């Protein structure tokens, strides 16, 4: 990769660039201008509800989420994922770009993973430095040469996007190991329709409910050769994991077992479930456990969550592990800057969704460039996730910046730097029903069944709730929004018109036939009952107790 030129963001005397507001067009003087056309109906609906009622709906929402137990676990406590009542709208046209860009990226990353865990041509051709791959903490030699049955390694991906000052979508990072959050996409939609149906008025929103089915189909398609009706299980670390709610949700909605490591054992390169009917074979494991804990034979020997022998069974082609072991190389933040090159190398295409400018700190020139401008950079650890270890230059003190400079100079392989990009904002309801702009990102989820890449219309919008904050991770106090992809009305027959509903000839069950008058309808009887004097009973009434 060539040296990076001057970063795109140079603070001007007028202050940093204004974020793109997704609901309001910007007026020349910087104040919110008119509502963008796609948001018209939503803005009207919100006006109609008003702040007081919005605050009341927030209470209803909290009660509903509590009751449903839609939670994530943080520091050992279950909490509802904060859900904002104002949905985020993405037009059909904008979505087409996201959808094709996400699918393109996954195709390239699939090819990359197949290559580095196989022939290694991309390394031989010098597209990506060999040392970068082999030094990645997620590159597992133990997984080299394991060929997945249908060639898929990234069964589920979550590609994090942001919108820059012009409203263009950029890729912030790839999640190819255990992308989390899709259950909240489905639950957010249901919750919003439940507590604030008015906002849906006048919109045709693409449904998201098909995701569990698509996922199940992809897992079935990934079954070992010769298994027509595979047994599938979701492998969870257990109830104390942050995303346990999601693991249970997906297992339930796919109608498959939710298992923990201790429910499985391997014998003769086959994985078995311990059941009351004795051992039952299992063919596809959708695991939500990190590689390091998956198999104590190959990885951390002290893991209590994994299954000894699992990797050998996968190598023997008797079980499919989804997502594949070793995918973390492709979402290593140090590999991220090379993804546009990988798209060109494998697909011979230009990237549809560009990267955020990223500096490779192992290059002395780029390191120097970054150290000069540390206060305008975001510094990220290459193997981090969940927003841990982030340093945002503009928010750091002199002392923190000096410490960061020391750290990245000492260990440039494990850090990357990006200029601070001002994420777009969406109106968000805060205390008392006030609407204020808050920064958002977007994680579309994609499922690869080997034939098609299905990108769930919408995805998880995460919102940084504190004013001005750029950190959206739920582990750092971020919330979420229901994300609406509008139907494509521009296309003729964008959706098949439902078949006419057959009018079943109704039985002549009139209301009367379904009713029964328990209390005699004879008014005289009612009166006479009431007239009987009850001595000592001051109450008038007809109770016959």
């Amino acid at each position: 990769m060539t040296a990076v030129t001057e970063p795109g963001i140079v603070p001007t005397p007028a202050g940093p660039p204004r974020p793109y507001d997704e609901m309001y067009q910007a007026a020349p003087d910087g104040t919110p201008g008119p509502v963008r056309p796609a948001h018209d109906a939503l803005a009207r609906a919100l006006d109609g509800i008003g702040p007081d009622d919005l605050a009341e709906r927030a209470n209803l929402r909290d009660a509903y989420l509590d009751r449903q137990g839609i939670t994530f676990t943080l520091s050992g406590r279950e909490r509802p994922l904060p859900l904002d009542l104002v949905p985020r709208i993405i037009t059909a046209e904008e979505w087409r770009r996201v959808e094709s860009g996400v699918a393109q990226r996954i195709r390239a990353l699939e090819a990359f993973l197949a290559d580095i865990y196989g022939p290694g041509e991309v390394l031989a051709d010098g597209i990506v430095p060999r040392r970068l791959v082999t030094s990645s903490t997620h590159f597992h030699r133990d997984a080299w040469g394991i060929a997945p049955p249908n060639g898929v390694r990234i069964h589920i991906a979550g590609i994090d996007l942001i919108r820059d000052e012009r409203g263009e979508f950029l890729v912030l990072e790839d999640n190819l190991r255990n992308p989390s959050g899709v259950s909240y996409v489905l639950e957010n939609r249901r919750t919003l329709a439940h507590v604030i149906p008015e906002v849906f008025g006048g919109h045709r929103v693409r449904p998201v409910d098909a995701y569990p089915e698509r996922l199940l189909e992809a897992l079935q398609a990934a079954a070992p050769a010769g298994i027509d009706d595979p047994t599938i299980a979701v492998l969870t670390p257990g109830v104390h994991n942050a995303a346990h709610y999601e693991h249970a949700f997906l297992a339930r909605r796919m109608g498959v077992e939710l298992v923990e490591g201790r429910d499985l054992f391997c014998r003769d390169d086959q994985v078995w479930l311990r059941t009351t009917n004795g051992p039952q074979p299992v063919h596809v494991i959708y695991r939500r456990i990190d590689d390091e804990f998956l198999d104590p034979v190959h990885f951390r020997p002290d893991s209590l969550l994994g299954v000894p022998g699992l990797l050998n069974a996968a190598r023997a082609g008797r079980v499919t592990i989804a997502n594949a072991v070793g995918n973390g190389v492709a979402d290593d933040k140090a590999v991220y800057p090379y993804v546009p090159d990988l798209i060109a190398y494998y697909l011979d295409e230009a990237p549809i969704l560009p990267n955020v400018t990223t500096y490779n700190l192992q290059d002395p020139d780029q390191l120097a460039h970054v150290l000069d401008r540390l206060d305008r950079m975001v510094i990220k650890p290459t193997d981090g996730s969940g927003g841990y270890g982030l340093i945002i230059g503009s928010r750091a003190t002199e002392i923190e910046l000096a410490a960061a400079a020391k750290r990245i100079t000492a260990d440039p392989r494990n850090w990357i730097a990006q200029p601070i990009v001002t994420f777009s904002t969406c109106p968000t309801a805060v205390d008392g029903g006030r609407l204020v702009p808050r920064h958002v990102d977007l994680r579309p989820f994609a499922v690869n069944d080997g034939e098609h890449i299905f990108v769930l219309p919408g995805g998880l919008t995460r919102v940084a709730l504190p004013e001005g904050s750029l950190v959206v991770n739920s582990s750092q106090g971020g919330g979420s929004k229901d994300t609406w992809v509008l139907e494509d009305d521009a296309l003729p027959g964008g959706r098949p018109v439902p078949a006419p509903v057959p009018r079943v000839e109704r039985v002549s069950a009139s209301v009367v036939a379904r009713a029964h008058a328990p209390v005699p309808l004879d008014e005289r009887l009612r009166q006479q009952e009431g007239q009987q004097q009850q001595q000592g009973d001051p109450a008038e009434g007809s109770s016959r107790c």
Partner: protein
Amino acid sequence: MLSRIAESFFWIGRYVERAEATARLLAEHHQLLVEDRTVNEDVACAVLLDALSMPHVDVNTGTALVRALVGGPTEPATITGSVTAARENARAIRDALSGDVFEALNATHLALTRGTAFAASPGVALYRVLDRLLVVHGVIEWTMSRDEGYLFLALGRSLERIDMTARMLCVRHDQLWPQSGPVATLRAAGALSAFLRTRNPLQGNAVRAFLVVDGTFPRSMRVAAHDAEEAVRGLERAGSTDGGDLLREVGMLRSLLEYTVDPGPAEIDGLAEHAQVAIERASDVVSSGFFRQAGTIVWSH
């Protein structure tokens, strides 16, 4: 047992089941109306009202639909009407009921008629109603002896359950909303998790067949018919008998459902329709055989 009291038990069973099934069905139907606007609201309203044998004059929005089906205390096919009727029946036989059953029904009736069940959003209100009705169900199961009164109540509940499941199948969510319809039908029957574990494909016909002939799910028509037959046999053992007419009606329906295998779409439509006729007949037979026996001298004015 007095005929009058038996009759009230029977109708408490029917009305509580009707209120709950209607609330579930309405909650899911309304959710679909809101989330997926590919179907015209007036069509979606008409389909549901048709299935519930309700008139649909001037009901052409989701909000109006909820208002119509939550209804008022004097409309026995609505949620409020069903609960009120169940409560009136309970009030007339308070001595024969456990105090807890009356209290639970009364609280539900008051919440509905005083408007305290209502919240800003229809979905939330229906959830509150459902919660209360589940308490009523629970209290009935845990506080009533399995005597004749309970058996009449269980009979009414099972017959109504078959009728309501059949009506739900007539709504055809799967055709109105091809993507989200089958899931909504299952949710309306409380059957989503139960169905998914059967590993059947999540598509319209498999879902509808499950609700007709599944042998383990308590709200499938087949299981409900089996429960109804058990209640009738229990009544016979307890000495309440009509000479076998009711057992024949219920038994014929049960065996038809019992021996149906893999019904296709048209067969399911036929079964749903047949079941509604059979329930109407069975209900008449219960009435004439147990509650209003021939030969009773009626004083006429």
